[in-house]
């Protein structure tokens, strides 16, 4: 009997022991699977510490004085474009840039996967009438030839298929215009709006100019079209009885993506430029296609920069521009030497955003007039995430260049190495874009640490790919506190008046802020026109 008892208790002991070990193993294996994912973080932002020196009046002893013909303030696309055209005319110039690197919103960086943009990342195919832009693209071999006068683009620079997709109603659909799971009425309304915009595309005003064109100053002054500046896009849609939720979301997305501001606030006139302003034509692509590179518009920026960089002084903060006799004296603080220098010149091109002008010491009346303007800016978060090419996705259309989620609190992400041609890509760079709404102040954003922005990116990217955190190895977050000026209702009229006043002065303003649209074409032409007026 004791023997039997022993067997039973032995069995019990065995069972208990095995169970304990097995359960222990099971739970540790669960724990291992869910171990903390470590993501390498990097955070960057504009050099606001240097910029904010302007908040106090700088009075510093002058160290050196240079002479040149033209000073260009700002080395974003407009400043580089101005320099590029002055260079072509063999005209003397110096570019002063606050940041370490030139390029403005078109700057880019690089990680182990490749280059990626910090901001602007594509250029829609230009229209045939944008001759100077076409000439530039030919010169840098983005256009390889012409067929019946229509440009043939280098196929490797055209955005490769598949271009974009939208996550809507639980599925990825082809293209960004919502259609999957929508009812007929909504689809019909979207179609009606697009037809309306398409009709405007090649329409001309009573001055013979296109109703909607880029740069903005080439658009017609015909009141029949300009009147749309007095109304916000949202109100305009309601006036036309376009109430579809999906249409409103889509337009809101488009406006934020290109102009950084939603349909409630944006001038309908500016918004219509998104759909009717571009008249792209190519021999080997559809009219709506875009040009893009791994480093985004950094590719175009570098082509401009190449020709002009020997005249670039970076980390240079301009703090005063004064007219002395018939010349101008531009004073700047050189952050590398911590000294102040002056440049005496015949003309100045202000190729910096409007908010910078506000703090300059000056006696130049054109500048004073612009300092008074009150332009609002939006703040952006642009984050590039290096991920293993093992993203889990809900069903439908496969990974595209541009990937957007319907109703998301962000503008989606772009696969930056999409244009790289390789049979296998073990890693991807996903560049994520988010516009902060007004309530998030610049002051607040500049105070936040890296972890704060990482959490935003990780949480919002998880809505696209549930395993995002598991496959992501690096995140570089970049904050643009003053990313884009807001083209609100009635701003365009003021800007257009300013533009016509300022035709033959030795003081030129060239920045996409003055066109109300922060896009490459606008900046490129702003720079070009400013340079032309000085020659």
């Amino acid at each position, binding site marked *: 009997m004791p023997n039997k008892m022993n067997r039973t208790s032995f069995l019990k002991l065995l069972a208990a022991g095995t169970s304990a070990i097995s*359960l222990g193993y099971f739970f540790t294996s669960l724990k291992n699977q869910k171990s903390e994912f470590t993501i390498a973080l990097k955070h960057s932002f504009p050099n606001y510490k240097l910029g904010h020196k302007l908040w106090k009046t700088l009075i510093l002893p002058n160290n050196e004085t240079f002479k040149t013909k033209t000073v260009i303030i700002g080395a974003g696309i407009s400043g580089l474009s101005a320099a590029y055209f002055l260079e072509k005319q063999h005209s003397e110039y110096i570019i002063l840039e606050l940041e370490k690197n030139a390029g403005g919103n078109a700057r880019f960086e690089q990680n182990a996967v490749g280059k990626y943009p910090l901001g602007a990342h594509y250029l829609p195919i230009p229209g045939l009438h944008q001759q100077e832009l076409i000439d530039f693209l030919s010169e840098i071999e983005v256009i390889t030839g012409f067929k019946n006068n229509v440009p043939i683009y280098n196929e490797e620079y055209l955005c490769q298929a598949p271009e974009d997709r939208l996550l809507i109603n639980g599925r990825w659909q082809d293209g960004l215009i919502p259609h999957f799971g929508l009812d007929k009425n909504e689809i019909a309304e979207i179609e009606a709006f697009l037809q309306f915009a398409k009709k405007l595309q090649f329409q001309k005003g009573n001055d013979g100019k296109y109703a909607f064109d880029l740069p903005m100053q080439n658009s017609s002054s015909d009141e029949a079209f300009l009147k749309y500046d007095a109304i916000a896009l949202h109100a305009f849609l309601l006036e036309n009885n376009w109430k579809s939720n999906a249409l409103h979301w889509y337009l809101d997305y488009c406006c934020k993506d290109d102009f950084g501001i939603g349909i409630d606030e944006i001038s309908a006139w500016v918004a219509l430029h998104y759909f009717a302003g571009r008249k792209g034509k190519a021999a080997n692509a559809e009219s709506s296609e875009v040009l893009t590179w791994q480093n985004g518009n950094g590719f175009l920026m570098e082509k401009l920069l190449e020709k002009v960089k020997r005249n670039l002084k970076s980390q240079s903060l301009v703090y005063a521009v004064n007219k002395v006799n018939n010349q101008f004296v531009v004073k700047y603080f050189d952050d590398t030497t911590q000294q102040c220098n002056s440049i005496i010149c015949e003309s100045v091109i202000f190729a910096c955003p409007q908010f910078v002008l506000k703090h300059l010491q000056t006696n130049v009346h054109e500048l004073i007039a612009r300092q008074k303007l009150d332009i609002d800016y939006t703040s952006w978060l642009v984050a590039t995430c290096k991920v293993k090419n093992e993203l889990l996705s809900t069903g439908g259309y496969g990974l595209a260049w541009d990937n957007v989620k319907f109703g998301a609190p962000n503008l989606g992400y772009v696969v930056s190495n999409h244009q790289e041609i390789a*049979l296998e890509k073990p890693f991807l760079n996903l560049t994520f874009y988010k516009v902060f709404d007004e309530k998030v102040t610049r002051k607040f954003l500049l105070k936040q640490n890296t972890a704060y922005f990482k959490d935003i990116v990780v949480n919002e990217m998880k809505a696209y790919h549930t395993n995002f955190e598991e496959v992501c190895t690096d995140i570089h977050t970049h904050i643009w506190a003053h990313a884009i000026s807001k083209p609100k209702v009635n701003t365009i009229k003021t800007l257009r008046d300013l533009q016509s006043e300022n035709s033959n002065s030795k003081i030129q303003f060239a920045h996409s802020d003055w066109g109300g649209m922060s896009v490459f074409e606008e900046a490129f032409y702003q720079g070009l026109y400013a340079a032309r007026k000085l020659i």
Partner: protein
Amino acid sequence: MDKLNIKKEHLLMFSVFVISTCGLIYELVAGTVASYLLGDSVFQFSTIIGVYLFSMGLGSYFSKFIKSNIIQMFVKVELLIGFVGGFGSVLLFLLFEKLTHFELYLYANVSITGILVGLEIPLLMRLLKDKFTFDDLVSEIFTFDYIGALLASLLFPLVFVPYLGILRTSLFFGFINVVIAFWVIKSFKSELVRESKELFIQTYILGLALLLTFVFATNIQKFADQLIHGENIVVAKSSPYQRIVVSKDKSLYKLYLNGNLQFSSDDEYRYHEALVHPCIGAGNVSDSVFILGGGDGFAVRELLKYDNIKQVTLVDLDKEVTKLFKENPLLSRLNHHALRSPKLTIINTDAYKWVGDKAPKISKLIIDFPDPSTYAVGKLYSLSFYQKLYKTLTPGGTMVIQCTSPFFAPKSYWCINKTLQEAGFFTMPYHTYVPSFGEWGFILASKSPIAMPVINEKIPLKYLSNKHFKAMLDFSKDMTTADSLEVNRLNNQSLVHYFEKEWSRYAQ
């Protein structure tokens, strides 16, 4: 005594609740596994629920034949359910590849579980019949039964499948059945004097088995996933680029890359002779030949038949593939050890980049890429790539491209032809019949008009002749298309779209 009775009654009532939860879970597991393995979920769920409910009816009917030892029978039924229900889904996964009549096993499994579950409630009712009035008994039993069913149907999709997975869910509930059995044995020890020890041991063993399987369920799942190909597997490995599987059936070898058949050893000579020799016999003679793709070495084998070819360069992305066909004794026998030839240079790199950056001038080029089924491969058939090849090819040089099937995918085939012409090439399309693939297409291309190739018939050929080649140039009506086709560009990937549409008609 009275007190003890109340306890037992509650225990038994509670077990009704647990049992019905388990019962419904097994039904859901079977339905889910069947939809997962066989597809067509509406059909699977509908038939499985039907068979299951019917079997429960059978079980209830059989219960009247159990006359004595009801408690012991109840415990045994519990243990059996724990076994059949718990291991059911594991066996379904493991046996999926092994059984010819998988459905038969599936429904047998569902029926047995159903019958056993059907036995449970009547047995319980009989155990409880003296403890309650009939009205109360029926009312309470069915109340707990249906509450249990609701609980199961909510927990299954919301908790168990997402957190435990299908295998672990069924093992977990099998374990619950065993726990019920254990509890009942313990409570009714007095009524089970003789059998209790035996039943305890059975309970322990089954419980332990379920627990161990539960812990190793992930490995079982992995093992089940590996059983993909029905034929005997000679090689199965993953390179950074693809899954390479070579199967052997008697003396027949088949290579699959990512599950797509690349060649079958009994008829690959038709494909490779047609691929290589017309190109060698067309245009200028050259002693140096380049191959893009074709890491299996068969095209190299064909080239080595020519004494006047002194140099062969093979550019293939996947080092694992070239290594395999060079070193594996079975596979290198198939390509006559071509990859060991001193005439051969192997470059493992991405062909698109190689052609753009590093390629020398080439007079003879053989292109044997996989079919354009993905955007990544589609780029190797793009205008942009062909423009690069145009710069690389010498004026009298010729190249040949494998171009998928003009019969299954005529638009794809002629789209490639149009893209080559757009890049400036003169082309000569031809096709051949390869039994394991069907009708297959190739295109010869050159920068000048192509005269009729002259195939050197002195070299050992099993299939090709000059006479037959002329017939290969003729395309019947069902291998052409009347539609106007787009050029395949990087920015439209038209070829991938054509290919997807055309082949999807044949894909299962």
